[in-house]
């Protein structure tokens, strides 16, 4: 198991390397000149050139890329073109708000989706099942920025229960994490339902019932455990969507997280920040996929890896 884990971890390096090349090349193809942006509209051509020299943007692309990799290896993500602040410090500051937002969203949506999905599967065909599945399709189709605005309208503007934007106290987490998790909850409910229905047709479920186990034990222990493999895969995929979705939700709630940082950086052509952020988002996504693969082994002993 450990051996497998290490091998998979090592396999991430070439993928990250590939992504770093893509990201670097793409970002340097961005329209707009950062040296011009920084020097200001009124600056003369000489002033722009001196800014370019100071930022080392005048050197060949390959040299810049090698520098970028060297710095990356030592944990130096460069300095922001806009604020002159180290990128690592900016990311460190924005990381925790996004982390809490994602964790809260994932926690409620997984739990809710799993339970709703199992109940729907057990009561298959009942009015409750139909209502639940309609809600689920609605959740999948709901633009999360609209949901966020509706919640804000009702709970912040009309009722005044929570603030409309920013992250100053824990209660500020409530509306953004509901918004961010809604789509995931909907997908998970739908997916768990069909996974449990599939498993319920298996012989071992009939055996479990035949030997007189209580229905609760049959469903929650035997059926759910075996339905969990596809469900965990789906949950891992959802985490990736959550990372992307958080950018939009952060914009709705003016959340001081990684998403807002990325959008600001894109608008200002802040290469260093965009580069670092996309690398970070990719790394997170790859690590989550790895974690999901490792989880399989724990859930189902039959597929422990050699």
């Amino acid at each position, binding site marked *: 198991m450990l051996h497998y884990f290490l091998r998979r971890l090592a396999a991430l390096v070439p993928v990250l390397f590939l992504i770093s090349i893509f990201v670097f090349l793409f970002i340097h193809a961005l329209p707009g000149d950062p040296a011009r942006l920084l020097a200001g509209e009124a600056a003369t051509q000489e002033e722009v050139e001196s800014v370019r020299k100071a930022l080392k943007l005048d050197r060949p692309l390959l040299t810049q890329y090698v520098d970028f990799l060297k710095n990356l290896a030592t944990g130096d993500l460069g300095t922001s073109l806009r604020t002159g602040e180290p990128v690592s410090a900016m990311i460190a500051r924005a990381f925790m708000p996004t982390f809490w937002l994602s964790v809260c969203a994932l926690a409620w949506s997984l739990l809710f989706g799993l339970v709703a999905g199992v109940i729907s599967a057990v009561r298959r065909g009942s009015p409750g099942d139909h209502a639940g599945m309609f809600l689920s399709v*609605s959740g999948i*189709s709901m633009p999360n920025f609209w949901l966020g*605005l509706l919640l804000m309208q009702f709970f912040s503007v009309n009722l005044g229960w929570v603030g409309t934007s920013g992250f100053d106290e824990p209660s500020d987490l409530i509306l953004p994490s509901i918004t961010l998790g809604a789509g995931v909850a909907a997908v998970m409910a739908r997916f768990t339902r069909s996974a449990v229905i599939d498993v319920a047709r298996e012989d071992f479920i009939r055996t479990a019932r035949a030997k007189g186990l209580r229905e609760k034990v049959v469903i929650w222990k035997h059926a759910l455990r075996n339905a969990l493999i596809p469900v965990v895969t789906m949950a891992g995929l959802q985490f990736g969507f959550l990372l992307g*979705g958080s*950018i939009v939700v952060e914009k709705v709630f003016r959340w001081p997280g990684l998403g807002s940082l990325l959008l600001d950086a894109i608008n200002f052509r802040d290469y260093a920040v965009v580069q670092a952020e996309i690398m970070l988002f990719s790394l997170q996504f790859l690590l989550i996929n790895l974690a999901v693969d490792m989880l399989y082994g724990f859930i189902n002993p039959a597929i422990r890896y050699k």
Partner: protein
Amino acid sequence: MALASDTSPVVPKEKTARSPFSEFRRRFVTRRAALASGFFLLLMLAMALIAPWILPFGPDEFDYRNTLSGPSALHWAGTDEFGRDIFARILNGAKLSMFIGFLSVTIGAVIGVVAGLLAGYYGGWLDSIVMRISDVLFAFPGILLAIGIVAILGAGLTNVIIAVAVFSVPAFARIVRSGTLGLKETTYVEAARAAGAPNAIIMFRHILPGVLGAVIVYFTMRIGTSILTATSLSFIGLGVEPSVAEWGAMLSTGREYMLAGKWHLTFFPGLAIFLTVLCFNILGDGLRDALDPKLDDN
């Protein structure tokens, strides 16, 4: 009763032969929700297309004496900060969103289907390359990939279409590849090969029809997702110009006035996105049930 049925010979009910299409229609029509969704989408598209001739207001007509007014008999969804009729703007947005959705998914589907067919049929290094690229594309969550692409190419309608098309490609490639892997081992493909049919004919005439059902279902569902992504891009300021009558852009500017109590600026455009995407998803579900012979009727 029981005795009677025991003694009478079992006569199977004669099944009338149905063509695949009439079978499809029978299954599809029984799913009323899907039918209603398809009807709603057609109705909205039709209204959007004839709007210029039936609505008293254009989507970009200013009326400074009548700004930010709520829904009324004259302005069904109210007016925005420039006094523009929101209902007219929503219909214009419908036209735009459907256009973006159809075009981007079509581009993504064509590239993905060809790549998937080639990868599945020839296998080997071609398969490795196609799957490796789609793995890398998959490593980026859709919206993140789209944001990255628009960040590189710049904001604007064309680039949004390209961004949304690119992130549709890997999914189509995977579906078609796995279908092709199964179909290329079938007897009829082997027979075609034995009869000397060229590879291109085998791929497009014999294998493609077999995977087309899955492609159509996915195509329909993907349009909903694409509309969501495109409106999200506009909402975060990376899509169309903020002044364009597009759903995401309308929500983005409406947010400012919502805090001042003007709910209708965000409510109606959002409702339009929601209903449109919902209908595409329900339609896709219905198509899947109708096209997938493995599923039971109940």
